[in-house]
């Protein structure tokens, strides 16, 4: 009996030790790195970060991307999830195709959309065919921030909607069919059924999808880098540049702290805004 009481602790010990060593300790170290300068607590790194020319831009770009991309992804994934429910055959094949981007890295996704948006790419071929442009046109320079933003947003939506879809489909499967059938008998239209039954019951899934996606969206970096280099600054890209180009750990860590603070704030906001009452769930 003595042994079996210790057993669960023995089983979780390796994972716990590992997570403390590679999650908790680096977290503390990042804080120290960001707030210490010349061996004393200071805000120098943050001052340098805020004083940098790219800071405001990267903050704005990152937020803009998250605000545009995440809601669109949730909406798309909801639509796709509902469509999947209506399919009577071919569901598995469709689901597989739709989830392929789940395995595509952000760098690869950026390169995929580079093939489309480059000067002599497929987008320009299409536009030229319709007579919109005369010849190869550059959409990804710092002179065209609008089209650069569009390219990055499209690449992000293309790549990362799949993860939202999987979470929402898993949630949709948990909703008992009888609820919708009952509502239908009482004459509720499909739209009413979606709003009054599906959406409220899907709240826990939507919440976890939003948290996961938003945290990852604030980390956006390689997609942008593949499409436009540093022409479109984002927060994590700046952290990478400070570390690699400027060899300044402190400012890079300050960026890391900023990204973490924003991610945590977003997570808490979602948890508050979408609070789920367990008694209303099936």
């Amino acid at each position, binding site marked *: 009996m003595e042994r079996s009481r210790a057993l669960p602790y023995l089983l979780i010990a390796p994972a716990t030790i590992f997570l403390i060593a590679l999650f908790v300790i680096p977290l503390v170290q990042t804080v120290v790195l960001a707030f210490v300068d010349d061996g004393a607590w200071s805000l120098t790194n943050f001052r340098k970060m805020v004083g940098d020319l790219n800071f405001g831009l990267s903050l704005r770009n990152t937020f803009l991307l998250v605000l545009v991309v995440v809601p669109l992804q949730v909406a798309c994934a909801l639509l796709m999830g509902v469509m999947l429910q209506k399919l009577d055959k071919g569901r598995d094949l469709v689901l597989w195709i739709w989830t392929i981007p789940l395995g*595509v890295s952000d760098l690869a996704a950026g390169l995929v959309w580079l093939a489309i948006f480059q000067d002599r790419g497929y987008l320009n071929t299409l536009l030229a065919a319709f007579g919109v442009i005369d010849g190869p046109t550059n959409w990804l320079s710092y002179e065209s921030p609008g089209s650069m933003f569009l390219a990055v947003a499209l690449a992000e939506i293309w790549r990362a909607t799949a993860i939202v879809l999987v979470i929402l489909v898993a949630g949709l499967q948990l909703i008992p069919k009888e609820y919708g059938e009952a509502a239908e008998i009482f004459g509720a239209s499909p739209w009413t059924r979606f709003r009054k039954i599906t959406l409220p019951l899907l709240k826990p899934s939507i919440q976890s999808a939003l948290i996961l996606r938003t945290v990852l969206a604030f980390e956006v970096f390689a997609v942008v880098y593949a499409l436009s280099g540093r022409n479109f600054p984002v927060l994590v890209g700046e952290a990478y540049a400070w570390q690699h180009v400027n060899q300044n750990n402190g400012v890079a860590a300050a960026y*890391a702290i900023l990204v973490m603070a924003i991610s945590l704030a977003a997570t808490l906001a979602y948890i508050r805004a979408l609070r789920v009452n367990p008694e209303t769930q099936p």
Partner: protein
Amino acid sequence: MSVGLRRVVLWSGVVTLCLWVLVPIYLIALGAFGGRAGVFRWPKSLLPWDATLASMQTFLAVEGVGRAAVNGALVAALTMLLSLALGAPAGYALARYAFRGANLFRLLVILTRAFPLAILALPLTVTFIRVGLYDTPLGVALVHTALALPFAALVSASLFMGIPRELEEAAWVFGCSRLQAFRKVVLPLALPGLAAAAIFAFVISWNEVFAASVLTVRNKTLTAYLLTVLAESPLHYRFAGGFLLILPSIVFIFAVRKYLFAMWGVSNK
């Protein structure tokens, strides 16, 4: 709307969304196999006129590409082993035992999801240089394991929860030891799901770019290597690299498609 019309609308939506996923992959494949001629062709054609295996071979022969691909696979394999070796026992404990601290552990695991973990590689550079892990596949794999472990633990917890405890207890009654019962009864049932979790860990690692770039100089993974040489490589090399990154992922997602939901679902309540 009539039933027939509704079906047409539904299926055209489904097909459009399938094309939305597949066409860009086809286009980068054209870029990858099209070589220099394909990249500069204007206007572009949707048919593979320029595609040759030679242009992919030229890319693979570029110095560093082969080594980076091997490194990437090695790091991903190490991540797969480590995250399963650490995560599966924890998942088993969460599924089978009610113990003090279980919720605290669960919180620690879930908390990692709310942090941009890869960024934590920044301070690790210093530590890794000190202990000799900097610029080694194992070092990168350790950080990637921190990314994959939470999934491995939560997935295996839900897998083991799905295997009735009675089966295990029956094995004890028939004289199996705890370990034997686990090995002969539980493990075979959980194996496909565990394999899926392992493959997913592989994909997480294969795709991760920030930590892999920060923690290496010469022993880069393929993703990190591509990021470093991106600015100075010609377009057709970039597309070849991108295609090479996507290829294993497509195969792997196909292999784990049945378990995607166990992995991401909210079924662990």
